[in-house]
């Protein structure tokens, strides 16, 4: 199963959701798989922070569906967030974990899921997230997207994907700071709120 194909399927289901995603090759893949979601996606750069940030956003915007596109390496960096979500039970957070069993962006050293003994969905369930599943086919993944996007409990799908990267895709040119402004202005516009307002004086 290719991550890019999964992304393309997920993208067709999205319109007014907000997405926070991890670093590495998945950034450019999402940029191309979901061009209509570029302004609604925050491209972040750190392991262990994607799902916590998405959760914070979900707390602040309880009427909006928030999607975390995390990774095996990223989730393993802070498994504690699963316990926090198990206790907090956000109603509007859908978490996809792209599990390619490797740290792809630095050349592919294996992560702990590569052994076959470490089951991220199992860890999530044991942390109190009842709806946590592993998908190994595109059809399974798509079915979990359908269910996860309308669930009123936290929903995790661990997508077992190959280590291939979609070739010849357009690179994202913006950095983290520009990405934040684009995302914040999109949230302001679509929510009718002010997040980064004017100073006291100009």
């Amino acid at each position, binding site marked *: 199963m290719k991550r890019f194909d999964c992304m393309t399927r997920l993208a067709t289901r999205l319109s007014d959701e907000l997405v926070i995603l991890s670093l590495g090759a998945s950034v450019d893949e999402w940029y191309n798989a979901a061009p209509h979601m570029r302004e609604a996606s925050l491209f972040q750069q750190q392991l262990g922070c994607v799902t*916590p940030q998405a959760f914070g956003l979900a707390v602040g915007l309880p009427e909006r569906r928030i999607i975390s596109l995390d990774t095996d390496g990223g989730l393993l960096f802070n498994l504690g967030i699963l316990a926090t979500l198990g206790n907090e039970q956000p109603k509007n957070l859908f978490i996809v974990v792209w599990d390619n069993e490797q740290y792809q962006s630095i050349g592919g050293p294996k992560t702990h899921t590569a052994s076959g003994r470490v089951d991220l969905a199992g860890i999530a369930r044991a942390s109190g997230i009842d709806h946590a599943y592993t998908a190994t086919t595109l059809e399974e993944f798509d079915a979990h997207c359908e269910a996860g996007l309308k669930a009123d409990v936290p929903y995790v799908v661990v997508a077992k994907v190959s280590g291939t990267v979609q070739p010849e895709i357009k690179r994202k040119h913006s950095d983290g700071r520009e990405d*934040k402004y684009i995302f914040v202005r999109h949230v302001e516009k679509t929510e009718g709120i002010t997040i980064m307002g004017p100073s006291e004086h100009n």
Partner: protein
Amino acid sequence: MQQSAVEAVIRGLKRAGVTLVCYLPDSLFKELYPALDADPDIRTIQVTNEGEGAAICGGLFLSGQRAALVMENSGLRASVEPLSRMGLGAGIPVVMLMSYRGDMGENNWWAVPHGITMEPILKALRIPYTVEREEADIEQSIVNAYELAYSSYYHTAVALSGSIVR
């Protein structure tokens, strides 16, 4: 902490518009956490480590609400990576309120590292901070931390020490 200091913290957070507190409990603030939990205007989320709390606070910033990360100052060390990435990489601010373990008067050997490392780490990250030792200054100091964080879109911190937490 005295009840009056707990109330001063909560007044400061409310004046700053805080609606969410992420915390990992510690001993010096032990009276503060249940008071925050009980406050109807503030949602609390207990986290598994302070770096996770920093990231949740950063996510809440993106929603237009205001968060505080409340912790012992040892939590600053656990938060350095997400704080660096969010603050320097993206300009997503986190306001921290921490107990100052290891300050003058510390009587626990295990807290000595917290005192030695806190201010150098804050300076390394270029995080503006104030150390408050007088209860009368708590409320305004917290408000000031939010003013600057939302002008700079960068982290700020308030450390409470002295008779406030002893």
